[in-house]
């Protein structure tokens, strides 16, 4: 098979940090080539370099044997490279049709020739089995359909090489199968696919060859037929990881939080809750499994007082919640690790120490007269002790939190939320984007909190994470609870089906 793409010695630096270091990659025509690696291994950066979004600090790219310089996405598109980003590049205010023809340079004329374009798109869609509803606004179609729009967009622009960046992250199992069928069709049409993932099962199923990245560097490229899951995992992590199985609690204590037939924006499948009843006991971790956007955010925000449910009741530590305000819940010792740490958790332009004491400046240890005069020295010293305890790596506790890495930002939040020995901890995607070490740290902290009698609600789109630490697993789909399963020896098949709404 002839070679379509070769990337040689690609290095990309952000400040003093190397995101890619001397990476080599070669892709052949008509193959599915997987880039495998942990979060932060440099996969997305490499692809952004290929797509002209980043300029490499060093290195050379060859397409069809010829050296090329890709200075912009426009250039990449012209060269026949198509990319489906992890976060879809779809304009929500526009329709599917408009999104596909956006930026079209192939046709002449000032006006949009709707009929001709529609015909063209429909033909293309039929050929690859990409079912889409052209006149629907993007906001009204499911995630799987949005992905098909993205693929169609790339093909419409004549892509020969298609990059799929974590395409299965937000899909249900059924949708993943649909995607794989599409990929097979692409292969048959002699198109090349770069598939980015860290999910071993999928990688083994779809790839022809696999290139493993670790910490920004190429580890090796292997044929699918010559490897297996265990080998790949070792290559990916670079060391043998002892399977850490936390002990599972089967008898939780008294409930700290109980929801009774709670509903919120019932009609909305992706951002509402429909008749949710659950309870979280002291000393247990309840894991909510499910694909992103099935009401998990809303659930988290109700049990932390950010949102007020339309119907139903909530009981916090044995008494009915009369008014839903974040402050009311904080006073009752509810801690929250929100889903978006930069947007919801941290004041990015404030220092590490300010973020650590964010909620507690009125306490006597940090101020006189109920906040009338801040004890700056006490705050500083406390922050230093937290920096040590939670292993927050920063130049100084006076550094702004937005300049910290994701893992350290999360540790700042942990230091703030866990130090008060909360009665209830709500953690949403607590390890998203973190490396293995930081992830382990977060999990250990949650287990510790459980040991101190805290009830933990863990919401995560990472199924493995939910399996790893939950004592009880609840599956959510389209705002409803599909089933409750034990955390010890969970029925994985059954849970997967429930996550897909079956």
């Amino acid at each position: 098979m002839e070679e379509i793409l070769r990337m040689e010695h690609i290095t990309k630096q952000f400040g003093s940090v190397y995101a890619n270091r001397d990476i080599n990659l070669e892709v052949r025509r008509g193959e599915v080539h997987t880039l495998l690696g942990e979060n932060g291994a440099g996969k997305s950066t490499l692809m952004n370099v290929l797509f002209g979004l980043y300029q490499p600090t060093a290195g050379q790219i060859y397409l069809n044997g010829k050296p090329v310089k890709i200075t912009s996405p426009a250039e990449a598109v012209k060269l026949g490279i198509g990319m489906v980003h992890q976060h879809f590049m779809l304009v929500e205010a526009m329709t599917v049709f408009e999104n596909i023809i956006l930026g079209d340079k192939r046709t002449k004329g000032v006006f949009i020739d709707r009929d001709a374009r529609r015909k063209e798109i429909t033909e293309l869609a039929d050929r690859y089995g990409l079912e889409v509803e052209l006149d629907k606004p993007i906001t009204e179609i499911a995630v799987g359909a949005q992905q098909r729009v993205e693929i169609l967009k790339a093909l419409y622009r004549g892509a020969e090489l298609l990059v799929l960046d974590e395409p299965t992250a937000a899909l249900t199992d059924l949708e993943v199968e649909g995607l794989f069928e599409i990929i097979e069709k692409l292969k048959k049409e002699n198109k090349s696919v770069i598939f980015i993932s860290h999910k071993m099962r999928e990688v083994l199923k779809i790839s022809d060859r696999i290139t493993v990245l670790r910490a920004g560097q190429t580890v090796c490229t292997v044929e699918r037929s010559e490897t297996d899951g265990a080998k790949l995992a070792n290559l990916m992590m670079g060391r043998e990881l002892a399977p850490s199985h936390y002990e599972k609690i089967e008898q939780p204590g008294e409930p700290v939080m109980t929801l009774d037939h709670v509903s919120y924006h019932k009609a909305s499948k992706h951002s509402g809750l429909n008749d949710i009843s659950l309870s979280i006991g002291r000393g247990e971790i309840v894991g909510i499994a499910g694909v992103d956007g099935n009401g998990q955010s809303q659930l988290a925000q109700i049990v932390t007082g950010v949102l007020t449910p339309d119907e139903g009741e909530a009981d916090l530590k044995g008494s009915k919640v009369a008014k839903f305000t974040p402050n009311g819940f904080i006073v009752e010792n509810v801690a929250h690790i929100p889903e978006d740490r930069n947007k919801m958790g941290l004041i990015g332009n404030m220092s590490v120490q300010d973020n650590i004491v964010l909620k507690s400046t009125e306490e006597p240890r940090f101020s006189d007269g109920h906040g009338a005069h801040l004890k700056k020295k006490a705050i500083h010293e406390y922050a230093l002790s937290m920096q040590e305890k939670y292993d927050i790596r920063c130049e100084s506790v006076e550094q702004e939190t937005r300049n910290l890495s994701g893992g350290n930002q999360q540790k700042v939040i942990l230091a703030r939320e866990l130090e008060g020995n909360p009665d209830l901890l709500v953690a949403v995607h607590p390890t998203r984007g973190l490396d293995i070490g930081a992830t382990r740290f977060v999990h250990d902290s949650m287990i510790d909190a459980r040991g101190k009698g805290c009830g933990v609600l863990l919401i995560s789109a990472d199924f493995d994470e939910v399996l790893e630490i939950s004592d009880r697993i609840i599956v959510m789909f389209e705002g409803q609870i599909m089933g409750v399963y034990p955390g010890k020896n969970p029925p994985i098949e059954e849970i997967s089906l429930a996550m897909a709404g079956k």
Partner: protein
Amino acid sequence: MDIGELILSTVRMATPILLVALAELYSERAGLVNIGLDGIMSFGALAGFMVCFITGSPFLGILAGAMGGILINMIYAYCTISLCAEQIVYGMAINIFAPAVASFIYRIYFGVSSTLAQDTLMKSIAIPYLKDIPFLGKLLFDQTPMVYFAYLMVVFTAIFFNKTKKGLNYKAVGEYPKAAETLGINVIRQKYVACMICGALAGIGGAYLTTCYVNTYSDGVVAGRGFIALSAVIFGRWSSGGVLLACLLFGFCDALQLRLQIMNTSTPYQLFQMIPYVCTLVALAAFGIKKAGPKANGKPYMREER
């Protein structure tokens, strides 16, 4: 009160606001909130006045206003697009800078003498046939060319954003610039183009005041019309038709207060002059809840941001 006169002056009063509101629409559709419209207008007003005064041609004045507007707005463009300065802050800086420059140039050129410099006002041109429509014809089709220009711009803008490929790409820049970039749209260039259009239209709006409306220049001639235009865009929900309606409403308030002033000389005129500002507030409070704006509005765009 003469209804015909009132409509006539509504149309005339709405024109500058309309031009400037369209300017803002073009800017915001590319994701740039420009609150420096008042400043751009005042510079356009001066440029228009001076050229008209020197050459005697209001048309050249309008052209000068457009050029002046572009010139000033390029400062805003460079700082907000290339330097990623906060748009609101920089718009404010333009509001302080541009009137100061305008007033300085006026003083240097005309001195501080008490005699008022006056230029020639643009004459109305009646459109054949259309002007013969009973009643409305005389009111709508016997105006200065700038009025026609403004209303044609509304139609053009509606077609541009809804029917053309360029318009679709343009909107994508204001909605999701990164997506636009991945589709090969040059976001930075598009934003600069947006600023040129915005500067030109706002400059014309300013020049209209000194070449079509009054025949002198004075500091504060703009009188907050840039901000009224800004509210017209919100009130008009970022569509050219909506903006037109909002501007006609505000123009009507302006026309009404002038009529009332002339009719009630015993009542203090300031009471009537408040009408347009109060109306803007009431209209916004009643209907202007912000929700439909372009999604990436006000956000700086950095390509290599991680």
